[in-house]
């Protein structure tokens, strides 16, 4: 697909999604759309580092939780408006990304080791937030209810819809830009063969640092949204493994290193969990069992994700040659 076509498709898809609040009057249905966009944002954030950069992270909760706690703590402890908290949360998460990047990329950690260290960082943050007072420790933080748009607490779901729509669109436009830029080309070169990329003069450390900070920033935005939408946080919600898993599951199912993969993955996952709820009911754990089964199946049989499957079906021959070339995953 040409890059112009991709941008056009992106605008059309998000334009269609924008019709949702006009067509859907039922709040519970709109909630599903909101949560799907939110999952797409989380997944796209992971995709920048994991899909385009090839650095598989098991600890994206570190950024999500930092964004969420930043907006909540600023409001509860300092009375600062959550719209300011939105920017602060994204930047704080990017800073955590910079710190983790410095600690890992500087020392050449790659592959499974990088994944495990990111998990350990998220755990350290979980224990810290469980132990200090200003995060409310184990009890968590309750953001006081004051419904108004100026307070980032909308009266209707439609208000929240527009915020998450705009954030997710921003993330997707950023990734489109990455796929279309010198930085993106260098990032994918580092993913495909770091030694070769360095031999050609790519500063792998700087490129990966850029990716982890961008990735952290958008994860942090998702965290801010979560805090404002549910108005409650505790260490397990913010820094627990569930968020890290959801972050990586969405792009892996949709297609790592593709622009639309995270959206496909998010829609598929949420569709599936709604379906399982309708068929099996609210049995504890069952939808997560399905997630696990999907993860195993995708890695075993469809390593290029739904997006890869789609392009494979569209033109079988070309997809095969792309897979062999290995450098055009989009």
């Amino acid at each position, binding site marked *: 697909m040409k890059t112009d076509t991709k941008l056009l498709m992106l605008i059309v898809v998000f334009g269609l999604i924008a019709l949702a609040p006009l067509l859907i009057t039922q709040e519970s249905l709109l909630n599903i759309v909101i949560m799907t966009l939110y999952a797409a944002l989380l997944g796209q954030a992971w995709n920048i580092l994991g899909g385009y950069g090839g650095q598989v992270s098991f600890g994206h909760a570190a950024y999500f939780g930092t964004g969420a706690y930043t907006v909540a703590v600023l409001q509860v402890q300092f009375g600062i408006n959550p719209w300011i908290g939105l920017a602060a949360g994204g930047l704080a998460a990017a800073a955590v990304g910079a710190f983790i990047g410095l600690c890992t990329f500087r020392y050449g950690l790659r592959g499974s080791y990088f994944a495990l260290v990111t998990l350990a960082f998220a755990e350290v943050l979980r224990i810290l937030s469980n132990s200090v007072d200003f995060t409310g420790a184990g009890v968590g933080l309750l953001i006081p209810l004051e419904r108004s748009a100026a307070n980032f607490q909308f009266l209707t779901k439609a208000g929240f819809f527009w915020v998450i729509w705009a954030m997710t669109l921003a993330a997707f436009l950023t990734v489109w830009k990455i796929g279309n830029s010198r930085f993106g080309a260098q990032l994918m070169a580092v993913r495909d063969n770091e030694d070769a990329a360095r031999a050609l003069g790519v500063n792998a450390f700087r490129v990966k640092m850029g990716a982890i900070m961008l990735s952290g920033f958008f994860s942090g935005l998702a965290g801010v949204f979560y805090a404002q939408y549910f108005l409650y946080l505790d260490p397990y919600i913010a820094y627990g493994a569930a968020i890290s898993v959801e972050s990586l599951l969405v792009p892996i199912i949709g297609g790592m290193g593709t622009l639309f993969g995270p959206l496909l993955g998010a829609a598929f996952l949420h569709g599936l969990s709604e379906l399982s709820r309708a068929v099996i009911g609210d049995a504890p754990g069952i939808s997560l069992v399905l997630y696990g089964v999907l993860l*195993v199946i995708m890695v075993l049989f469809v390593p290029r994700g739904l997006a890869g499957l789609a392009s494979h079906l569209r033109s079988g021959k070309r997809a095969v040659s792309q897979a062999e070339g290995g450098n055009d995953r989009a």
Partner: protein
Amino acid sequence: MPDSAIIIPSVLNGLTTGGLYALVALGLTLIYGVLHIINFAHGALLMLGLYAVYFLNVQFGIDPYVALLIVPPAMFALGYALQRGIIGRASHGRDENILLVTLGLSIIIENLSLFFFRSDTRTVDTPYSFDVIEIFGAFLPYPKVVAFIGALVTAALLWLLMSRTDLGRAIRALAKERKGAQLVGINADHVFAMSFGLGIACLGVAACLLLPSYYVNPQVGGGFVLIAFTIVVLGGMGSFVGALIGGLIIGVVEALGGLFLGESLGQIGIFLIFILVLIFRPTGLFGAKA
């Protein structure tokens, strides 16, 4: 500053806990040393083993230590099947893929357990659950002392198996030079699966020795995963001696961290060790230079 009357019992207690951790880590380090993969489902499989020991005790009245004859062989079979059927086919040339598949397996196992066993925390009643043994003025729980000795025996048995048997020789040959080992007639898929099975059988041993002094619920494995990884990384990936000593160190660190920083913050020491070792000495204390 607490005086030695508190510190010494705390260290001894940490050492016995460390023995349990070492048992869990032995299987992980065996799997890593041979297959060069990181088994993220290790904690979930330990939890499965704990449930097996629990139900054998509750349904059939089998003592956890007698279950040592049943659970480890069953876990071996499960590990063999998992490696042969799923994990061995997943890599597509990237180690991260195996990490992802084992993550998927752990999600499946944990949530199926949640579905079938509910989230209740269960313990077994044995006559010796609350017995204590006095060593250097410290009162140590009897089951923990047994587990500590069990860890040493298991490590010794593994070492014997690896150095004295044909299977051990085949495993080491494969770990060193895969193509060469296959050329002399070693069935790689079979031996890899045997290694994975052995690693999971270690978890079966750990489950039998752990349950009398511990509990089981569907989430119990999660706490062990990062601790076991830390031990393996600290001791050097693939080293049995390293896993044993790393386990003891981590046990003591946890006990002292809990003593000085409190229960919740005390755990942080383990993860900081993990991060620092991976950054500054990724080969661990006893690992070969890369």
